[in-house]
């Protein structure tokens, strides 16, 4: 029992970080119906940036979030303008899936050239520290990452609900045509929110490198999880993404402890298939119409 509770704690902590990455993905989908397959590669890119800052400039990975996130925001804005916005016509949704996949390959290639394909890890002095509460262990890094993700997610939801920009974003999600008619600059909203989505990946990525070792190919593992999280939560639903991330984290951690770590990721995919059998639209999604 103690072991299971410990696994649940671990799963929730990790799920929080995934929630941050997935929230960016699902936000971007909600606004412009674009699935950013490069989200995983962008997380890895941020992990490398934070790694480089740590090993060359000795900047703490949690502090480097403040540098990496704005830089990646700018990158996201550029990506949206150059690659995503120029897709026009009725196929633009499918095309965006492929263009962002190509972008992921490009990032993987560039990172492999610069950093080679050996596994790296950002390891600050406190990497192995744990806190013990009531006999349960909390990894210090994971706890900090969880709290940081929680803070960022709250900030994101405040941004969406309390600001003018947030109102424009939500209007665009509900009805793009009506939003444009009411004076919302759709292009501006789309570009900024793509940047926002990418910076969510960046913030999570800067910390990701402290929790897991990574190499340029790690983005496949990440994107497979992120995509299934947003589908399980329901495409476009922020709350769904957060819930699905926690479900994934806990499922994997419990399976890893109670059965075998090699089947952990697999078990989560099975959960996804079973849920889709009952609810094709995921937890909080709206049923999609055919293209």
């Amino acid at each position, binding site marked *: 029992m103690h072991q299971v509770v410990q696994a649940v704690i671990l799963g929730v902590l990790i799920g929080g970080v995934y929630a941050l990455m997935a929230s960016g993905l699902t936000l971007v989908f909600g606004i412009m119906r674009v699935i950013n397959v490069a989200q995983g590669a962008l997380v890895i890119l941020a992990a490398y940036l934070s790694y480089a800052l740590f090993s060359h400039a000795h900047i703490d990975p949690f502090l480097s979030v403040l540098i990496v996130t704005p830089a990646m925001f700018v990158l996201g804005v550029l990506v949206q303008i150059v690659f995503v916005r120029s897709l026009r016509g009725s196929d633009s949704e499918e095309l965006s899936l492929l263009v962002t996949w190509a972008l992921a390959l490009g990032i993987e290639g560039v990172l492999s050239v610069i950093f080679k394909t050996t596994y790296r890890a950002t390891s600050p002095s406190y990497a192995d520290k744990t806190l013990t509460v009531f006999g349960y262990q909390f990894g210090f890094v994971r706890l900090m990452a969880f709290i940081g993700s929680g803070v960022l997610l709250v900030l994101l939801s405040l941004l969406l609900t309390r600001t003018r920009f947030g109102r424009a974003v939500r209007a665009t999600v509900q009805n793009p045509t009506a939003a444009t008619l009411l004076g919302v600059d759709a292009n501006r909203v789309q570009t900024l929110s793509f940047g926002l989505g990418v910076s969510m990946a960046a913030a999570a990525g800067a910390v990701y490198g402290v929790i897991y070792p990574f190499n340029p190919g790690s983005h496949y593992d990440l994107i497979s999880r992120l995509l299934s999280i947003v589908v399980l939560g329901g*495409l476009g639903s922020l709350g769904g993404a957060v819930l699905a991330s926690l479900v994934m984290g806990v499922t994997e951690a419990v399976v890893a402890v109670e059965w075998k770590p090699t089947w952990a990721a697999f078990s989560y995919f099975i959960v996804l298939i079973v849920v889709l059998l009952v609810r094709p639209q995921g937890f909080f999604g709206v049923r999609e119409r055919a293209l």
Partner: protein
Amino acid sequence: MTRTGLLRAAAFLAVGIAFPFVFSPAWLVNIGVLTLMYAALATSWNLFSGYTGYITLGQVAFFGLGAYTLAITFEHYGIGSGYNPFYVLPLVGAGVAFASMPVAWIALRTRAMTFAIVTLTLLFIVQQLAFNLHSVTHGSSGLMLPTPTTFGVSTYDDPFYFAMLGILCIALLLCWGVLRSKLGLMLLAVREDEEKARGLGIRVTGAKLIAWWLHVFVTAMVGAVWAYYLTFIYPESSVDPLVMIGAVLMTFLGGRGTLWGPVIGAVVLVPAQQYMLLHLGGSQLYLVGYSAVFVVVLLLLPRGILPSLRDGVTRTRERRRTRLEAAAS
């Protein structure tokens, strides 16, 4: 079949059969095998995704299943060497296709982007299975197949070449047959407006499932030949996202929903891909080159070579007609 259609098919067959005799060096035939392999994969992707509008990103999962099915059969039942494995290909294809049906049924309950993502997770599921079912697949250490000893040394690649050519012909015939049949009309109706098609009484799920079965049938056969050709498979190589994206890219380049588009896409891109692998492979730079080609294709030619050409031809014809009419009046 129209006369131009017959001519095209005859020309394709003639070039396809003559190629290994004219360009006999092994490295050229090797590129030929890979080109045909991608052409068959792209054609069968087109058979499902091009006609129904449902983008599947999980095709390579069934490529891997075909490869593993043949390799595992080899290990446990010894289906003989030489040409024998080629005869069991249809069984492998049909077996994998039937096995994929329950998953397809679940996946096809979702629409559009969700479907694309669910099929993409199929890819990762099969790769995970190949890693984890250690007793059957030997996990990451991979599976060896016996090297056929009866094939001549200088013409070793030829049987594989013709096997791939045969599968590509089957795939093209299936596409052609489907397009001319009622099934093809049903699929196109699904692509244009599924709700309306359902409203008109078309059994959309059945039509989609038949197209799915056909595309997996071809894909698994290609995977099996590929495994026999390489004689060594492991999870990353047999369920490779790069192969998946390659087949999709070729279909987009040639033209989705057209008969010959995927073949043209493969003929253009596979030699280019092999060239990049050869010159940039060691440094992983080829990934950058590949993604650059990809982005250029999608941004500049999103509809593909064939449809763009066709548009060009119609436009010139119309212009000529209006000019003639203007001259006549």
